[in-house]
């Protein structure tokens, strides 16, 4: 056991650190593998945005569900999804969480409430609403969370979903990770005002705009709205302000994919959510060694996961038509 101060322990900050660093190192490793041409599936990295996934998921119970999009490795890991199966899926192996059929953009681990991620922008916004409707109808008290980006709020069904969740008072949290870009387009090329959070007001639901790189605040605010949703007080929209460090797709640093935003990126780098968390932990009395140990533990797991994935078999060609339909009732 590492030497952890009581404050950090009770606040769960070290745990969140562990998850953030797992996401960071996992994706950095995958990024390298992509550069080395060992992974062909298109990967959208959330490096720089780890606090959003972790802060939200830390405020959830196991039975709460999360629904993601194209940039969802972090959501999967933050909710506790199996690391090896994710790596194997990114390698498109038979042992992957989707049996190699899905790739990076279709990951799932229902045992911990990772219900599925899909790359059609905004698709899981109404789908999460449906999961919340299911919870309400069953009288369960689980909450559904949809993760999506600022670009997704441009799809009309973002609005339809907020409205529908509102009138039916559903336990769903809409988590918009506003990283200020949708692919190559900055936010002011796509909307007149930087006011995504105002959609909450329009649709009459709770809304909070939060520093998405501050994992503690993300967790705190999410915990509040989740509690409200759980006790029947309806949905909420969170806007988590953040920035992605890599290109829209692929491992390159942003300036390399044709969109010149080096200046902006250099302004955001100091707000690294992980560095911030490290500072907080050190202030809390956690030792550098403890952080190091966490890091090393995570790195070892990732190493194992790569080994697992690489020695896993490819899916068999003759299975290609399997699971188009579910067989029995």
């Amino acid at each position: 056991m590492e030497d952890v101060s009581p404050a950090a322990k009770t606040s769960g900050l070290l745990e969140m650190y562990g998850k953030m660093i797992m996401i960071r190192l996992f994706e950095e490793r995958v990024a390298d593998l992509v550069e080395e041409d060992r992974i062909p599936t298109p990967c959208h990295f959330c490096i720089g945005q780890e606090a959003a996934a972790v802060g939200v998921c830390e405020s959830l119970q196991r039975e709460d569900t999360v629904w993601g999009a194209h940039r969802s490795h972090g959501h999967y890991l933050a909710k506790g999804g199996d690391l090896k199966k994710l790596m194997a899926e990114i390698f498109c192996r038979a042992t992957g969480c989707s049996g190699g059929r899905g790739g990076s953009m279709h990951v799932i681990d229902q045992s911990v409430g990772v219900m599925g991620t899909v790359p059609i922008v905004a698709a899981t916004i109404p789908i999460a609403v449906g999961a919340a409707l299911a919870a309400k109808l069953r009288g369960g008290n689980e909450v559904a969370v949809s993760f999506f980006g600022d670009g997704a709020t441009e799809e009309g069904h973002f609005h339809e979903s907020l409205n529908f969740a509102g009138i039916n008072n559903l336990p769903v949290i809409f988590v918009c990770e506003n990283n200020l870009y949708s692919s190559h387009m900055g936010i002011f090329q796509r909307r007149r005002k930087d006011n995504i959070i105002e959609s909450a007001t329009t649709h009459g639901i709770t809304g909070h705009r939060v520093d998405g790189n501050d994992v503690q605040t993300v967790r705190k605010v999410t915990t509040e709205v989740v509690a409200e949703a759980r006790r029947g007080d309806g949905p909420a929209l969170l806007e988590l302000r953040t920035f992605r460090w890599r290109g829209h797709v692929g491992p390159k640093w942003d300036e390399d994919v044709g969109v010149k935003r080096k200046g902006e990126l250099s302004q955001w780098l100091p707000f690294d959510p992980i560095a911030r968390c490290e500072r907080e932990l050190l202030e809390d009395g956690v030792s550098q060694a403890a952080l190091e140990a966490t890091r090393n533990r995570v790195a070892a797991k990732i190493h194992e996961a790569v080994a697992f994935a690489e020695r896993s078999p490819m899916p068999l060609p003759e299975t290609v038509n399997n699971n188009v339909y579910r067989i029995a009732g």
Partner: protein
Amino acid sequence: MRTLNYAGAIREGHAQLLKTDPRVFVLGQGLWSPWYAGSTLKELDVDFGVDRVIDSPVSENATTGAAVGAAIAGMRPIVFHPRMDFMLLAVDPIVNQASNWSYVFNGAASVPLVIRSVINRRGEQGAQHSQALQAMYAHIPGLKVVMPATPADAKGLLISASQDGNPIVYIDDRMLYAEEGHVPEEMYSTPIGKAAIRREGGDITIVATSRMVMEAVKAAEILAEQDVEAEIVDLRTIKPFDQETILESVAKTGRLVIVDEAWKTGSIAGDISATVCEQGFDLLQAPIARVCLPNCPAPASQALEQAYYLSESDIIAAVQRTVGLKRSNRKAA
């Protein structure tokens, strides 16, 4: 023998599902209206509560997406679109999401969902209130498509669709709502993927979908007077369709007319024709005929509707043409 009309049979299917399966709920437009869905959903909200019979804003995408999500999360929703035309706003959750969900996650999840929509046409409603788009959904792997032609199947297919465990597009036709027929009172299901022979005959096979089955029966009676005995196959399930029954019938008759009241190009009829040509080429004594709508949007004026829609006379004409033809092997080996 208890009879019900087609609309009543649909309502009874819903009621029995809602009664027996707590996972079933209905969501869509017009559910709290006394007339929106004809009487197919009449007062289900009163009987089962507005929590389980949920009317919705004009938001087809989110409503359908929510139904998909509820299905993935373990419920058995029936999402309702009062017209196929409106469902075009919900193609993303149906074609991108519901259809693919089981496959992309390798069967770890599935979408037990009934997507019900209505063909509602004639009456000078015009092009945007008349479409029959079964071919569009039949093209998509992961979906199944059913089109009941009788009251009994209207109920039975709804129940099997709900129990199937996959996303099923269930299409009923408002012009059938008043048709009466025997409908057992108990809860039962009509097998998905199985056609039904509605009339036996040795001279020609008529494969028909939905309302066209009724027209085919009328046509067959007239044809019988002309000494042509038609065998009528009610397709019932459009996707996957029952190749076996069709091929067996064609093996007997050697001739095939396919009747599908949708646009000809890219219709189900083309698909059946191609399949029979592939699987049963040597059975055929004459070319396969398709009786479909012209490649033209629906007109409003009744004078044009009359020219546009199909009736038994179109079927009779196609049968007479086909029966008159013989295989002439110009180049035969």
